C-alpha cells in the first residue's frame, strides 16, 4: 500500500478523508492546503510550532491506512450476523471499492493502489510466514504427495488449458480485435492459474472444513508459488523474445528453471531455519529480543531467495515449517507468546490491507478495459478446468491414498480454488510495452479475483453445509489420546519393520530417530531437549489448567478461604466456612479465571508489581500464587528495565509447578498406602489406588514402588506408627498429631529432603513461627515457601471434579495432609499448634 501520486494529492486525500468523516465539504480542503505553505514562507524568525506535513507524509499515510483497515475490521465484527455469512475478505474488498470511490471523487485520479513492491516485500511475507510457522507439520508431510501433485501438475494444467482455450476462442474471432499472441495468452494463463494462499486462508479459516481437505487446498496454494513464478518468468521472457525466437532449448531451460527455483527456494528456507534454530539456542540472556530473531531471519530467507530469483514463498514457508519445533522449544514461554501474537497480528493486518487495497485499486478508470467475451470466458475456463483437473488428479491419487478423497471433497477443492492478490500483483508487474493488452489482463484479473473471493467465498460456506462436508472439530487435547497416538506411531512403524516395508511410518520413525539423535542435540537447548515431549507438554498444560480451575472453583465455593488469609497469627482460628468479604473474593477469582496459563499468571504478577504492593488484594493474591503455584517473582524493585522483562525464573517456575503436581500425585498414592480411607471428596483416587494395590500381587508387601528411598523409609515408619490402617476411617486428633510429630522427627534425622521439590516448612525442624509472622513470606528473600498459619492447620476440601490433578495437598511430602483434609469435619478445632512441635 503506498501513495502512487505526488505528495500533493496525498495530502489532499488525507484531508478529504478527514473531511468526509467530519461530513465537511471537500472543496475547503484546497483552501486549507495553501495555509501551512504560505505561513512557512512568510515567517522569518523562530517558530514555536511548525506544520510539516511533507516531512511525515509517507509514513503518516501508511499509518492512516492501517488504522482505517483495522477500524474497518472492528466495524465488521460489531455485527456477528454479517461476519458469519459474508467472509471478511469480501467485506474488505467492498469497503475498498467504496474508499476508492471517495479517493477518486476527491482527487479525480486514483492516488492509491496496491503496488507489487509493497505486496511482495511487505504484505505477503508475514502471511506466508504465519502459515509456515503454524503449519501442522505432521498433517502437511502426511499429505505432501497429494499436495505436490495438485500444486505442480494441477497448476501447469490450469495455466496451459486456460491459456490455450482462450487463444482458441480468440482465433475464432469471438473476442474481436486484440493485439495478443499465443504467448500472451499463456502468460495470462500462468498468472491466473495459481490458487492464492491469502485468499484461500482468509476464506477457509472461516469455513472450518476437515483438516485433510484444508491442508490439501492450502498446501497447494502455498507450494504452487514455485510453478507460478517459473511459468510467469518463462512466458514473460518468451514474450520479450518474441514468439518466433523461442526454441526448444528455452523450453528445456524452463523446466530446469522450475526444478532449481523450487528446490533452491526450499533449500534456502531450510538453511535459514537451521540458522534460526541455532541462534535461538543461545538467546538465553537476551530474552527480550528473542522474538525478533524469528521475524528477521525468516524475512531474510524470503529476501535471499528473492535475490537469487528463487521461490521466495517456498523459502519462507519452509523456514517456518522447519524451525517451528526447535524455536518453540528454545525460546521462553513469554517469547513464544509474543511470537505467536505478533505473527498473527502482522498476518491478519497484512491480509486486511491486501483485500482493502484490492478494492481500492480497482477504482481506477485508467486500468479498465472491458472485453465481455474475454472476461466471461476466463471465468468459465478457470472454473471448469480447475474442476476437471481436480477430478482427474484425485482419480489418480485415490488409487494410492489411504484416506480417499470423496466426490464431496473434490467439489469443495474445485470450488475453493480462489484467486487473489498474487495474481493481481503479477499482472500489474507486466510491462505495457511488451504486453500490449496489459490493461485487459489487469481488469480481467480483478474481475476474476472479485468473483472468486466475493461470490465463491460467500457461497462456499452454504455449499459446505449443504454437502455435509466433514467439518473439523475443535477438541481439547486429551492425555489418553496423546498416549495412544504415540503408541500407534510406534506400533505402526514396528509392523512396517516386521513386514519389511519402507512405508510412511517407517520413514517417519527413522526421521524422528535422526532428529532426536542429531538435530535436536544441535539445535535445542539442553533444558529444552529434556522437557520437549509432546506428551509431557500436554500433561503440563492440563495440569496448569486444572490448577487454575481448582483455585477458581475453590474460590467460588468459599472453601479455599485459607489461601486468602494473610499469615498473621490472629487469623488462625477463624472458621473458614465464614464467607470472606466478597470484594476480595470476586476479584481474586476473577483474576485467576482470567489467567489460564502459566504465562499469563506471570503477567499477572508483573502487573501486580506495578501496582501498589501494599494493596491487600495484591498481597492475598500474591500469597495464593506463591503457595500453590510457586511464588511469583519476588524482586519488585525494578519497575522498568529494557533488557530484563522477566528473569529466567519463569522456567523454573513452570518446572516447579510441574514437579509439584507430580509430587502430589505421588503423595496421593503414598497416602493410599496408609490405607486410610477418608470418605470425603478425595477418596476416589485413594480407593482406586488401594484396590489397585490389592490386586497387584507383583509388588511385594502390597507396596507401591517408591522413587525416593527416603520416602519409602518414611512410609514404612509411618506404617509402623499407625497400626492397622485398613480400619481407620477417622482419626483422633492426638493420633494425627503424633503421626506428624513422628514424621517431623524423621525429617529431622534425614536432614534434607530429596533434591526435587520444595522443602516443606511444616515439618522442617528449625522453623520459627516468630519469623513467619514478622515478615510476610512473599517478601522474604529465601527460597522456601512458607504456608500461612491457617494453611498449616487446615487443608482445603478439594473439589471433586478435577480429572487429572490430585487433590491439592498443602505439603509436598506429608502423607498426613489427607488426614488433615478430612480432619475439620470431625474435629473442627484441631489444635492449631500441633504441627509446630
Amino acid at each position: 500500500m503506498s501513495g502512487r501520486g505526488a505528495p500533493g494529492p496525498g495530502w489532499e486525500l488525507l484531508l478529504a478523508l478527514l473531511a468526509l468523516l467530519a461530513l465537511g465539504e471537500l472543496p475547503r480542503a484546497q483552501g486549507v492546503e495553501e495555509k501551512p505553505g504560505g505561513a512557512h514562507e512568510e515567517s522569518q524568525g523562530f517558530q514555536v510550532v511548525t506544520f510539516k506535513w511533507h516531512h511525515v507524509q509517507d509514513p503518516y499515510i501508511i499509518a492512516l491506512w492501517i488504522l482505517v483497515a483495522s477500524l474497518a475490521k472492528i466495524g465488521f465484527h460489531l455485527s456477528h450476523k454479517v461476519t458469519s455469512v459474508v467472509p471478511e475478505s469480501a467485506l474488505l474488498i467492498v469497503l475498498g471499492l467504496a474508499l476508492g470511490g471517495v479517493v477518486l471523487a476527491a482527487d479525480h485520479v486514483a492516488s492509491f493502489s496496491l503496488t507489487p513492491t509493497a505486496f511482495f516485500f511487505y504484505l505477503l511475507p508475514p502471511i506466508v510466514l504465519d502459515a509456515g510457522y503454524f503449519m501442522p507439520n505432521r498433517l502437511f508431510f502426511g499429505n505432501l504427495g497429494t499436495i505436490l501433485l495438485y500444486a505442480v501438475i494441477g497448476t501447469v494444467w490450469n495455466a496451459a488449458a486456460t491459456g490455450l482455450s482462450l487463444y482458441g476462442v480468440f482465433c475464432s474471432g469471438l473476442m474481436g480485435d486484440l493485439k495478443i499472441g499465443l504467448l500472451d495468452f499463456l502468460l495470462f494463463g500462468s498468472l491466473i492459474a495459481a490458487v492464492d494462499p491469502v485468499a484461500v486462508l482468509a476464506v477457509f479459516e472461516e469455513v472450518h472444513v476437515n483438516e485433510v481437505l484444508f491442508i490439501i487446498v492450502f498446501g497447494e496454494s502455498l507450494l504452487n508459488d514455485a510453478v507460478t513464478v517459473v511459468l510467469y518468468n518463462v512466458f514473460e521472457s518468451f514474450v520479450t523474445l518474441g514468439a518466433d525466437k523461442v526454441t526448444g532449448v528455452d523450453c528445456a531451460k524452463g523446466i530446469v528453471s522450475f526444478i532449481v527455483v523450487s528446490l533452491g527456494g526450499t533449500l534456502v528456507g531450510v538453511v535459514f531455519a537451521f540458522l534460526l534454530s541455532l541462534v535461538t539456542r543461545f538467546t538465553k540472556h537476551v530474552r527480550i529480543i528473542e522474538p525478533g530473531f524469528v521475524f528477521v531471519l525468516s524475512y531474510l530467507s524470503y529476501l535471499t531467495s528473492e535475490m537469487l530469483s528463487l521461490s521466495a514463498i517456498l523459502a519462507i514457508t519452509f523456514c517456518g515449517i522447519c524451525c517451528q519445533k526447535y524455536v518453540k522449544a528454545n525460546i521462553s514461554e513469554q517469547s513464544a507468546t509474543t511470537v505467536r501474537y505478533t505473527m498473527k497480528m502482522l498476518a491478519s493486518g497484512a491480509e486486511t490491507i491486501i483485500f482493502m487495497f484490492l478494492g481500492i485499486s480497482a477504482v481506477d478508470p485508467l486500468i479498465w478495459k472491458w472485453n465481455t467475451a474475454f472476461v466471461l470466458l476466463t471465468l468459465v475456463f478457470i472454473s471448469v478446468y480447475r474442476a476437471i483437473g481436480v477430478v482427474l488428479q484425485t482419480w489418480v491419487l485415490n488409487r494410492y491414498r489411504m484416506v480417499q478423497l470423496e466426490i464431496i471433497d473434490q467439489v469443495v477443492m474445485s470450488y475453493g480454488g480462489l484467486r487473489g492478490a498474487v495474481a493481481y500483483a503479477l499482472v500489474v508487474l507486466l510491462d505495457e510495452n511488451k504486453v500490449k493488452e496489459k490493461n485487459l489482463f489487469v481488469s480481467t484479473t480483478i474481475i476474476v479475483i472479485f468473483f472468486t473471493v466475493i461470490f465463491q467465498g460467500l457461497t462456499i460456506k452454504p455449499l459446505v453445509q449443504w454437502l455435509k462436508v466433514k467439518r473439523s472439530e475443535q477438541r481439547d487435547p486429551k492425555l489418553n489420546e496423546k498416549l495412544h497416538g504415540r503408541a500407534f506411531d510406534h506400533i505402526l512403524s514396528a509392523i512396517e519393520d516386521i513386514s519389511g516395508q519402507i512405508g510412511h511410518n517407517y520413514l517417519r520413525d527413522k526421521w524422528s530417530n535422526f532428529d532426536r539423535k542429531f538435530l535436536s542435540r544441535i539445535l535445542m537447548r539442553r533444558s529444552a531437549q529434556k522437557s520437549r515431549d509432546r506428551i509431557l507438554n500436554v500433561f503440563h498444560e492440563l495440569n496448569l489448567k486444572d490448577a487454575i480451575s481448582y483455585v477458581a472453583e475453590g474460590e467460588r465455593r468459599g472453601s479455599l478461604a485459607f489461601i486468602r488469609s494473610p499469615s498473621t497469627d490472629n487469623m488462625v482460628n477463624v472458621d473458614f466456612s465464614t464467607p470472606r468479604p466478597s470484594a476480595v473474593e470476586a476479584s481474586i477469582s476473577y483474576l485467576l479465571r482470567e489467567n489460564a496459563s502459566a504465562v499469563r499468571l506471570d503477567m499477572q504478577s508483573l502487573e501486580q508489581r506495578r501496582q501498589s504492593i501494599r494493596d491487600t488484594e495484591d498481597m492475598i493474591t500474591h500469597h495464593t500464587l506463591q503457595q500453590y503455584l510457586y511464588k511469583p517473582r519476588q524482586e519488585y524493585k525494578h519497575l522498568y528495565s529494557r533488557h530484563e522483562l522477566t528473569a529466567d525464573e519463569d522456567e523454573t517456575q513452570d518446572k516447579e509447578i510441574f514437579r509439584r503436581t507430580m509430587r502430589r500425585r505421588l503423595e496421593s498414592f503414598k497416602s493410599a498406602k496408609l490405607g486410610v480411607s477418608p470418605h470425603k471428596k478425595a477418596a476416589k483416587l485413594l480407593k482406586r489406588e488401594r484396590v489397585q494395590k490389592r490386586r497387584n500381587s507383583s509388588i511385594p508387601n502390597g507396596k507401591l514402588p517408591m522413587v525416593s528411598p527416603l520416602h519409602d523409609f518414611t512410609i514404612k515408619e509411618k506404617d509402623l506408627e499407625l497400626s492397622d490402617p485398613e480400619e481407620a476411617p477417622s482419626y483422633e486428633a492426638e493420633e494425627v498429631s503424633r503421626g506428624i510429630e513422628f514424621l517431623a522427627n524423621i525429617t529431622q534425622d534425614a536432614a534434607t529432603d530429596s533434591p526435587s521439590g520444595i522443602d516443606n516448612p511444616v515439618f522442617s525442624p528449625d522453623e520459627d513461627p516468630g519469623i513467619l509472622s514478622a515478615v510476610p513470606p512473599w517478601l522474604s528473600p529465601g527460597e522456601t515457601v512458607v504456608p500461612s498459619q491457617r494453611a498449616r492447620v487446615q487443608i482445603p476440601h478439594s473439589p471433586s471434579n478435577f480429572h487429572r490433578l490430585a487433590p491439592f495437598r498443602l505439603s509436598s511430602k506429608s502423607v498426613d495432609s489427607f488426614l488433615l483434609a478430612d480432619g475439620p469435619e470431625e474435629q473442627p478445632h484441631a489444635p492449631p499448634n500441633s504441627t509446630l512441635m
Partner: protein
Amino acid sequence: MGATHSSSEEVRELEGKTGFSSDQIEQLHRRFKHLSGDQPTIRKENFNNIPDLELNPIRSKIVRAFFDNRNLRKGLSGLADEINFEDFLTIMSYFRPIDTTMDEERVQLCRKEKLRFLFHMYDSDSDGRITLEEYRNVVEELLSGNPHIEKESARSIADGAMMEAASVCMGRMEPDQVYEGITFDDFLKIWQGIDIETKMHVRFLNMETIALCH
C-alpha cells in the same frame, strides 16, 4: 502350513480368512520365511534379528502381541511359544486398511477389532482391565525413548491419563466410588470420535521393497 502354503488352494483359504490378496500373502510369506530362517514357525527370538526394531521403545509389547493368544483368537489368555504363517497373517490383518466399500456395520466391527488388539497390548495380564499399574508400565516404556524424561514423570502422566479416563468413563464419581481400571467398553468410549480406521493401518502394497530392505 508355511512350507506348503504356496499351493493355490491354501492361499485362497488364507485370503478368505485374513482378507489379504494373494500377492500380499505371497509377499508376506517371503518375509515370514526371511524372519524365521526358513522354519515353519517364528519364535520370539526371531524378532531380534530386525535391526530397525531395536530403537522402538515399546518393542517388547509389540512382539508380545504377536504371540498373544487373544490376538491369535486361540484363547482368552496366555502366550503362544511360536506362531506359524497363518498366525502371522492374522496379526498382520489387524493392520489392514479398512475397505472403503464396506458398509457401516462392518466398519464398526473392523474398528472394534483394531481397538481390541490395542487393548490387549495394554492389558498384559488378560483380566479384561487396564489397571493403573499396566498403564504406567506402557507409558514408561513409551517415554523411555527420551532419556531425559524421568520415570517419575512417566508415572504421573499415566496417573493423569488414568484419572482422565475415569472421568470420561464414569462421569462424575461419587466419593466412595472406585475406578478399578479401563475395561474394553471404557476403552471404546475413550476412542470415540477418533478416526482409528485412518490411523491404524499399514499399506501392504509395495511389497517389492522387501527385497531391497533386507
